[in-house]
């Protein structure tokens, strides 16, 4: 018991927790305070819209946005767009995971691999990858390929970098122990390297996912004829700020949901860590 609370105190992995600084009975007030502020902002926004201070051409009223959201869901427009966008992220991100892991394993496990792979990746990483969009359009046209390509390209880096770092930071003493146990190279990769680097990889996957959604938002602004980005482009032409806000909210929700999915995987795969066992 004492060990576990000590581990929790040392836990720097979770979200920063204000309760560390405040007694427990303050927590309720803090939660209330955290909710109160956004509610107040939305209320002010609504008042500004109703009084005519905030024109719907600049930003639609919260109630208007809620009604539009209901309408878009009911018409099926939003769901159709969402499915298309989701498939783009899935395709691009899957490519990124496969390539990122393959590159990181090669460069993490062999010095030659690292010498070949690491320098060019570090150079490409320095480039603002969203700026590559014009090139992607020239190379891949304006269909699905540049959108999926942009998602994949952006997400490779966090996956590669975290997994590579994770492999390199594996406890040398465990490698030594596995030599004593005569596990062999494959055994070492299977029993030590992969599980040992998994925490880092999962962080990279979560970060990569947020990059993937960001890339999609940018990619979908270009000549999309379907997907959430298409709905936004269409709405922009007709000054429908309510539709644009609804679509942005959908992006945010999708980002949160996919992140939650990975967190769920994390909680299961890393259940050996004291702070996850709880």
């Amino acid at each position, binding site marked *: 018991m004492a060990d576990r609370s000590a581990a929790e105190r040392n836990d720097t992995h979770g979200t920063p927790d204000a309760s560390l600084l405040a007694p427990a009975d303050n927590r309720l007030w803090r939660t209330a305070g955290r909710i109160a502020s956004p509610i107040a902002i939305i209320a002010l926004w609504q008042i500004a819209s109703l009084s005519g201070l905030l024109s719907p051409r600049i930003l639609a009223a919260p109630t208007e946005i809620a009604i539009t959201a209901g309408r878009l869901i009911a018409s099926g427009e939003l769901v159709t767009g969402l499915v298309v966008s989701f498939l783009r992220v899935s395709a691009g991100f899957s490519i990124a995971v496969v390539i990122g892991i393959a590159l990181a394993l090669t460069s993490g496990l062999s010095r030659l691999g690292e010498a070949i792979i690491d320098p060019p990746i570090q150079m490409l990483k320095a480039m603002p990858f969203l700026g590559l969009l014009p090139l992607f359009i020239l190379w891949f046209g304006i269909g699905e390929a540049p959108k999926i390509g942009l998602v994949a390209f952006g997400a490779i880096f966090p996956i590669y970098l975290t997994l590579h770092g994770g492999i390199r930071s594996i406890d040398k003493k465990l490698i030594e*122990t596995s030599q004593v146990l005569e596990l062999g190279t494959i055994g070492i990769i299977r029993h030590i390297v992969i599980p040992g680097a998994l925490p880092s990889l999962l962080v990279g996957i979560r970060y990569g996912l947020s990059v993937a959604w960001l890339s999609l938002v940018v990619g979908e602004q270009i000549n999309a004829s379907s997907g959430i980005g298409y709905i936004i482009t269409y709405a922009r032409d007709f000054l429908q700020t309510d539709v644009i806000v609804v679509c942005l909210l959908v992006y945010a929700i999708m980002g949160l949901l996919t992140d939650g999915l990975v967190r769920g995987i994390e909680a299961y795969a890393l259940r050996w860590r004291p702070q996850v066992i709880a």
Partner: protein
Amino acid sequence: MNALVDIRRLRRSFGGPAVLDGIDLKIAQGEFVALLGRSGSGKSTLLRVLAGLDTAPAQKLEIPARRSVVFQEPRLLPWKSVIENVALGARKPDARALAGAALADVSLSHRRDAWPLTLSGGEAQRASLARALVRSPDLLLLDEPFAALDALTRLRMHDLVFDLWRKHHPAILLVTHDVWEAVALADRILVLDQGRFSHEIRVDIEHPRRRGDPQASLIETGLLRELGVELSHV
């Protein structure tokens, strides 16, 4: 003497002066040898050579193929349960059954499905001991295995190691800086100083050996002096 370990003129240096300066070492089958020495005397280097983790030139280097090591830290894989960790030592079809038996040997059956990070220091070290024993080694190398444990747990571990040695009878090389630990357990004690054995003593006292036993105290004081510690109150 049927030597299990037979080393002659072993030398190891890391650039500077030799850490091991032409060492001869024989260990018989089933013999319990303790290796004492100040820090930096080359104890761990010698153990690493015996474990096969380090190579060094020697005139003769006979080491049994079946050997296991218990380090100062338990070195369990945190992502495998206790029994999976122990089974990793066996690597046979019936590894899990063997691991279960090894855990029973160290009285840790009740924690078989626990995660290593939830174990106490003593429990983790017992699991590590089980992982070494499950390989049924001819030579068991113990590298200051109890140094990080509290005094009470350490005494209990001494009894456990002694019982396991009686039961399975591997040859043991125990590297330690705890003089009493060496006197309490070993058949023979070697003192390593500046890369050479400076002292060797047989301990022919009945087990269990008690602290304060005059014969044991005499050996203990002699060893301490050998290590450069003068006890004014003895």
